[in-house]
């Protein structure tokens, strides 16, 4: 809702980082349209969390499980945090939730990649008769210093 009597310092006050983060203004009043948006985002997030957990439990392999969880669970949590932003507005807790979405999208692939590389170094095999693409059994790992230099693709 716009205040029609905006003082010249009002924009500076709105864009003040302290006000942006700290001033949440108490519990928000959620109308029916905002409530519908929040419900849709929460339902989407819960669906993707279920997809990620089913993939974690049902898939046969560590690499397949990571493929399921690192994408679906991240999307689910990001959707619920976006519902948080829609609920609290663009300041205060809503802004913190947006920062959380950015953080999840940066860190979830990083952690998943490090875990899969650790699994490959530990010698965890694929399910069934799946092999690494290209070479017969061994992997081009540029971080391993023993052996020859890995060839470029």
């Amino acid at each position, binding site marked *: 809702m716009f205040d029609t009597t905006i003082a010249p310092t009002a924009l500076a006050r709105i864009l003040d980082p302290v006000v942006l983060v700290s001033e949440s203004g108490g519990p*928000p*009043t*959620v109308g029916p349209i905002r409530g519908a948006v929040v419900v849709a985002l929460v339902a989407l997030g819960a669906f993707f*969390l279920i997809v990620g*957990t089913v993939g974690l439990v049902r898939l046969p392999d560590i690499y397949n499980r990571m493929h399921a969880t690192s994408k679906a669970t991240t999307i689910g949590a990001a959707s619920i945090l976006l519902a948080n932003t829609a609920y609290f507005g663009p300041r205060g807790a809503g802004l913190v939730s947006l920062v959380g979405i950015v*953080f999840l999208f940066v860190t979830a692939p990083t952690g998943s990649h490090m875990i899969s590389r650790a699994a490959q170094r530990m010698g965890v095999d694929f399910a069934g008769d799946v092999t690494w693409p290209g070479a017969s059994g061994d992997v081009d790992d540029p971080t391993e210093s023993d052996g020859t230099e890995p060839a470029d693709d």
Partner: protein
Amino acid sequence: MANEAAFLDPVLLAALVLSAAITLVAGYRVIVGPTTPDRVVALDVIGTNVVAIAALYAMFSARGLFADVALVLAIIGFISTITVARYVTEGDIIE
């Protein structure tokens, strides 16, 4: 509650119950996971689910404080995943 949309609270409660249930289901993979990376991935999923639970509880209780809780839980989950991956690979964390 200051909510005018009265349909919001049952939906949030159902999503909370559902998230808690699938977090318990992910605990199955922590217990029976054949290898250590399986358990680490399952714990990572549990961490992400708890982030979602904190965000849902922020809406359910209409307190913006729990959004900060969700952000800090995401940071700690990332650090723990990186730490375990490095420990499994290198044998130590700080050399």
